[in-house]
């Protein structure tokens, strides 16, 4: 009889369900990055001059920057001149006026992904913006939302239809100079979602964006901007998948959230980009900048993320707590199996008085996966009576994986309190045996134990998403035990 450790370490192949490719005619820019590429993108999108200039400023700044080396991840050097920066499914004529006119192949793709867009089949209670490679192919429930004054559309459309709002808020939280990947995104972003909830409106349904990378050698650089005006509430979901490919593909997104007085934004992500195969070949490089600004008093921004995909994840959804009494939350589950690497965490920057933040991070490593939590809690002098509570737990499955924690804490006043708890545990052979002895298979036991470990995070997810996340976790860890 083999020992339990051997059993746990014997890895078998796992299947990535979303690895198919859709054969559509596309219109792409040639690979490479120059001011011409950026002008081309901007022209394709019929953008106003101020936006073209903003992009060019970002590009010029980017050329002076170096790729960051501090994340605890390893990858081959990315050649930014090999990447295609614009790829869109070819439109017939003027392009679809409504979802009914969208290429059926695209609609089928989303259906296969479990996101039906057609009027009759679409998900009840969830409005979806579907982004395919560089562009949004359609947004559901637009009319119903418009009745409440909620704007939910693709970023490109927002630039055309609501230029004042875009101009006012774009770059307010993540300026184009922010960091290497955010700056690159500012130069070349192609689409994404835009959402504005007017004063006092509680968004009547969940809003969501579903990102799909399809074309080869293409980078996806989308930008999401969500503004909740005074007293507004919105819950937003993000999902993503990509075909299975041997080459790595770059996804460098920027998400900016802005909450004004008494507003609340809840942002949930289930990230399931192709993670590469069991030998670490292929997969998405997910280098993302997500930041929320609690600009108003009593505002609240809550990030919940379940990160199961990508070859490499590099992402720190953060909150800047500027308004007095504002609240920031970060709930995260990050799974690395096979050769996946994740360096993820959050920054909570307390500026306003009585600001509160909560961080709950659950890292799960299996196979040769490497999982790092990196978090900063910064309490500025002005943030009197600020409070933070952080809890970072890591679980190891097998003995070839790793978990690392890098908490940074800066407190500049004496009335604030910061609490940090951390733990690392190996998934217990005794727990698995206990489950086995009650009739559960080892794989079911691992899923059960891991789901239990992540419970505090899952309970923050909207219902349907929580179920999805639990299933996804099971798939991600499939084969992590023999």
């Amino acid at each position, binding site marked *: 009889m083999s020992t339990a450790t051997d059993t746990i370490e014997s890895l078998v192949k796992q299947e990535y369900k979303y690895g198919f490719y859709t054969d559509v005619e596309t219109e792409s820019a040639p690979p490479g990055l120059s001011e011409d590429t950026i002008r081309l993108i901007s022209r394709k999108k019929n953008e106003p001059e101020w936006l073209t200039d903003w992009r060019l400023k970002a590009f010029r700044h980017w050329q002076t920057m170096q790729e960051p080396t501090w994340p605890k991840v390893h990858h081959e050097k990315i050649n930014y001149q090999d990447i295609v920066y614009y790829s869109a499914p070819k439109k017939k004529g003027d392009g679809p006026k409504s979802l009914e006119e969208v290429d059926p192949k695209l609609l089928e793709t989303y259906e296969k992904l479990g996101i039906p867009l057609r009027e009759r089949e679409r998900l009840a209670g969830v409005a979806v913006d579907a982004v395919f490679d560089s562009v949004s192919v359609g947004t559901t429930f637009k009319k119903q939302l418009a009745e409440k004054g909620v704007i939910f559309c693709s970023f490109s459309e927002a630039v055309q239809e609501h230029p004042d709002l875009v101009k006012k808020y774009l770059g307010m939280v993540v300026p184009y100079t922010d960091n290497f990947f955010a700056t690159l995104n500012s130069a070349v972003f192609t689409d994404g979602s835009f959402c504005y909830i007017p004063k006092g409106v509680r968004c009547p349904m969940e809003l969501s964006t579903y990102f799909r990378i399809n074309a080869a050698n293409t980078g996806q650089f989308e930008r999401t901007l969500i503004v909740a005006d005074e007293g507004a509430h919105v819950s937003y979901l993000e999902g993503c998948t990509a075909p299975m490919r041997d080459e790595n593909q770059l996804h460098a997104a920027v998400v900016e959230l802005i909450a004004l007085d008494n507003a609340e934004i809840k942002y949930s992500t289930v990230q399931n980009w192709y993670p590469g195969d069991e030998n670490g070949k292929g997969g998405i490089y997910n280098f993302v900048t997500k930041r929320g600004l609690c600009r108003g008093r009593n505002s609240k921004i809550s990030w919940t993320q379940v990160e199961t995909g990508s070859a490499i994840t590099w992402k720190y959804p953060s909150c800047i707590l500027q308004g007095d009494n504002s609240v920031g939350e970060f709930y995260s589950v990050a799974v690395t199996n096979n050769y996946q690497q994740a360096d993820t965490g959050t920054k909570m920057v307390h500026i306003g008085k009585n600001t509160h933040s909560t961080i709950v991070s659950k890292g799960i490593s299996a196979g040769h996966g490497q999982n790092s939590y990196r978090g900063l809690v910064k309490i500025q002098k002005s943030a009197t009576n600020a409070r933070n509570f952080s809890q970072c737990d890591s679980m190891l499955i097998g003995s070839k994986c790793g978990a690392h924690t890098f908490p940074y804490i800066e407190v500049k006043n004496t009335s604030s309190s910061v609490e940090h708890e951390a733990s690392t545990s190996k998934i217990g*052979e005794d727990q698995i*045996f206990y489950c*086995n002895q*009650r009739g559960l298979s080892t794989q079911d036991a691992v899923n059960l*134990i891991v789901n239990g470990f992540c419970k505090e995070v899952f309970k923050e997810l909207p219902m349907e998403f929580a179920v999805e996340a639990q299933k996804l976790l099971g798939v991600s860890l499939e084969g992590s035990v023999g």
Partner: protein
Amino acid sequence: MSKPILEIKNLSAGVEGKQILKGINLTINAGEVHAVMGPNGSGKSTLAAVLAGRAGYDVTGGDVIYNGKDLLELDPEERAREGLFLAFQYPVEIPGVNSTYFLKAALNEIRKSKGESELDAMEFLNLVKDKIKLLELNEDLLRRSVNEGFSGGEKKRNEIFQMAVLEPKLAILDETDSGLDIDALRIVAGGVNKLKRPDSAQLVITHYQRLLNFIIPDFVHVLYDGRIVKSGDKQLALELEAKGYDWITKGA
């Protein structure tokens, strides 16, 4: 003559090269209750672990026939689904996993393997209600995570509660009595007795004759240094209580 549920023939097993069980012979028939006693470290829990199929134990010789099948060929979960139940000496905590959910999953696995339909949440709760009464269990425990923060006695009682729900063919109770106060002991033992059926059997590991006042064994065995050195009826337990193990082991 009832038919054997478990036949252990000359079973030897060890851990990391260390020999712990050194040739165990034991037959348990349907309807019988067997007690195994023996000093600390004699191999009682090891026997239970080997029967339940815990990884890390190497069987170095002998056979175990369970229900007509070669038990040692089965995975631990298959043994469980075949009706072998181990009440753990040290029940394990599983944080974040709801007790009710856990037990329902377990029961449904067992039902599935028997070709029975799975119970839904309502059906399961109805079933559980009776069993809770049987063990006078605090219902609150079922809303909490599996064994997490349970007191020692609550953990033990919870094991027998699980046994009541899963209705095993062969239940192995590893020192279920230790850590129970006298009232709890009476309740748990009462529960175990009510779960006795003509087609099932129980193997009760204990240090104390006291338990055997409540759970009356048909046979008592003394395990010493990996071997059963003496077997008898319930009188043997009384004798052990009076004289200690020296009385038997001196000659062994």
